[in-house]
């Protein structure tokens, strides 16, 4: 048993937390501004596919990363326009984007790389295994600072709490929301890029496998605050790391079936949501389009 608890577990936890953290911080900006972002999964997929495809063609992961960020923002802008301009229900719009992003990368991959299942593999020299990790963890204090120590952050929070008040104070509610949703697309895009050109070396169909949703859960668990959200992401990363280490380990002579180990993060998410979130209060205007009579 104790061979499990080693330094490698810590690294594994950090690696597995990174995409969650990037997406969750993205979600944080969007949700603090009042726009539910259940589309994180789709935004990550956009980033993952684009980063892999562009890195393959350009032979340069930095261009790939940038492309991943832009792709995340582009898809986020669909969510933004639907929710902000057309006042679509934010959960439904997010769900649509998630479905869209299962389809689009596969469609493009099929068209460009002859297989809708995966993109070509990228050589090791063109991978960026650590940069996104560093970015993710640096973003935590940065996000804290932006949120609580800059005019932008003040406005962002105001828009998510009481858009009417922000509007009356001369803040452009929709402008702030567009900025926030685009920012969330950028960060989720980095998270996706990390999956395809950091953690592994290609894009495969639906490769996020639910990470966007776990990130959202982490954001809620972290009560929409950057540091707590990071801790939540580390917790989820840790459960996943442990679940990997636990595979094949015998407990009382019996091997724990794989399936039971794999559902640990999901069960944990539910337990956390149901049990621990308790008094957490979402940004008050979360989910409500700002409708101003004209």
């Amino acid at each position, binding site marked *: 048993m104790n061979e499990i608890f080693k330094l490698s577990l810590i690294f594994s936890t950090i690696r597995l937390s990174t995409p969650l953290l990037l997406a969750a911080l993205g979600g944080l900006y969007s949700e603090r501004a009042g726009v539910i972002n259940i589309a994180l999964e789709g935004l990550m997929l956009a980033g993952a596919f684009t980063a892999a495809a562009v890195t393959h063609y350009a032979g340069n992961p930095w261009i790939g990363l940038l492309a991943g960020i832009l792709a995340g923002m582009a898809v986020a802008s669909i969510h933004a326009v639907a929710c902000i301009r057309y006042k679509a229900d934010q959960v439904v719009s997010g769900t649509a984007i998630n479905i869209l992003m299962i389809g689009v990368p596969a469609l493009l991959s099929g068209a460009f790389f002859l297989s809708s299942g995966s993109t070509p593999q990228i050589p090791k020299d063109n991978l960026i295994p650590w940069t996104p990790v560093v970015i993710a963890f640096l973003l935590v204090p940065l996000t804290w600072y932006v949120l609580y120590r800059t*005019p932008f952050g003040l406005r962002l*929070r105001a828009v998510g709490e*009481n858009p*009417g008040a922000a509007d009356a*104070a*001369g803040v452009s509610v929709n402008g702030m929301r567009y900025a926030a949703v685009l920012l969330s697309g950028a960060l989720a895009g980095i998270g996706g890029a990390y999956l395809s050109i950091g953690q592994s070396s290609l894009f495969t169909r639906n490769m996020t496998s639910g990470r966007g949703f776990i990130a959202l859960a982490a954001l809620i668990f972290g009560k929409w605050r950057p540091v707590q959200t990071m801790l939540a992401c580390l917790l989820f990363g840790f459960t996943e790391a442990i679940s990997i280490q636990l595979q094949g380990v015998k407990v009382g002579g019996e091997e724990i079936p794989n399936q039971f180990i794999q559902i640990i993060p999901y069960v944990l998410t539910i337990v956390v949501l149901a049990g621990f979130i308790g008094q957490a209060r979402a940004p008050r205007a979360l989910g409500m389009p700002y409708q101003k009579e004209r």
Partner: protein
Amino acid sequence: MLELREITKRFGDVLANDRVSVVVEPGTIHAIVGENGAGKSTAMRIAYGFYTADGGEIVVDGEVRKIATPHDAIALGIGMVHQHFMLVDTMTVAENIVLGAEPGSAATLDLQKAAREIGALSDEFKLSVDPEAMVENLSVGQQQRVELLKALYRHARLLILDEPTAVLTPQEVEEFFIILRRMREQGKTVVIITHKLSEVLAISDEVTVMRDGRVVGRVKTSETNAAELARMMVGRDVLLRVEKPDARAGRTVLSVKRLTVVVRSGGERGLRDVSFDVRAGEIVGIAGVEGNGQTELVEALAGLVHASQTSGAIEFEGRDITRTDARTRHELGIAHIPEDRHRRGLLLDFDLSENSILGVHYREPAVSRSPMLDTAAIRVRALELIKDFDVRPANPDLPARALSGGNQQKLIIGREFGLPPKLLLVSQPTRGVDIGAIEFIHRKLVGLRDEGCAILLVSAELEEVTALSDRLLVIHHGRIVAEVDPKQTTNEEIGLLMTGGSKANVE
């Protein structure tokens, strides 16, 4: 300083502003008066860039200006304090004040500097508030000061105040007027919206009167009087006294004993140790500044507060109903006209028939053979209700959303009267309702009382509670601080009690 020329604004079928022209001279306090719905707020919101006018123009300091957003208005030195405060509850006073006009660079928010500036401003205008305090922990009066500071912080030269006194007690109103006069002395211009004539006469230099979306008059305050203004406002002579015979109170229907309600979030609010009785055939009024526990009281009596948040006892016709749910209480004969008809009272997307059975939808006659709804019977009843309570338009298939506020209110009242109730809990029965409907509703309430129903009435309109009630309880900080005879007590005395002054002080 500010001039509106021929401003027109339509909301769907409602012509809210019809070629409205207002001239506000610099350095004056200008009052805009009019009844509910006259279009006062709309006109001023257009001046502040909150709404866009369909026609007309805005002139600031002699120049025609385009004010498309509040941002434009702020840049022109216009500030506005809205009828419903525009504050972010979860932020501090300082954060609220600087929001949108932050000191420091884009990369840093210099709240220290802000606090200093706010301090200077509060000294200048004697508007003391703690910049570090969380807005949600402030009293309404303090929140209003924050709103004023917000405008001043943005160097507003013109302040538009939309019904600033509605939430204040008479004493607070006095203090507030002192502040306004001080502002005038400092060279600021003030527009104050109100429909209380006494206030107009006390504070303003000039008055613009509005009715039905139009400006019907503009006079110097020194050259007019209350009667003239009232006639302009209403277009006829007004009589806002409710004619009612003395109550013949019978047995005790409701007995509240040491009722306490704890509100989970929101610090001070709640209800503490409240005891009183309501007897059959009387109207007991609750007077108090909004947010002093009235909502909690009514909701607790209606069974809408979770048992874990309450202590004490509620007896109805001698039976302890403290632990029963809303449905049981309704079945026992407790009807409830809620304070917010959109939040509680109606299913806006449901049609009138469907709304007419809310609360009795599961039993005779809405349901004939369990569990099917008897749509024919429901329709017949809805048509009856619509007729008896003069709900217009008289079409049971319309969604409730399509009705005006007054008609929505009549629908709710009709539904609750049809229970029929032994005890009626009624909150803000005439809020946002036109004069005709107010009279109708008042008559209905008195009629119900005379049939022997016990009525508990909560209203923010002091005039209304004093006129309708047979007994009046004053609530302050969640406690009943006094019981007074509405016929024997002046509004000033009640006002003092509402702010926490003792009864001894009054006598």
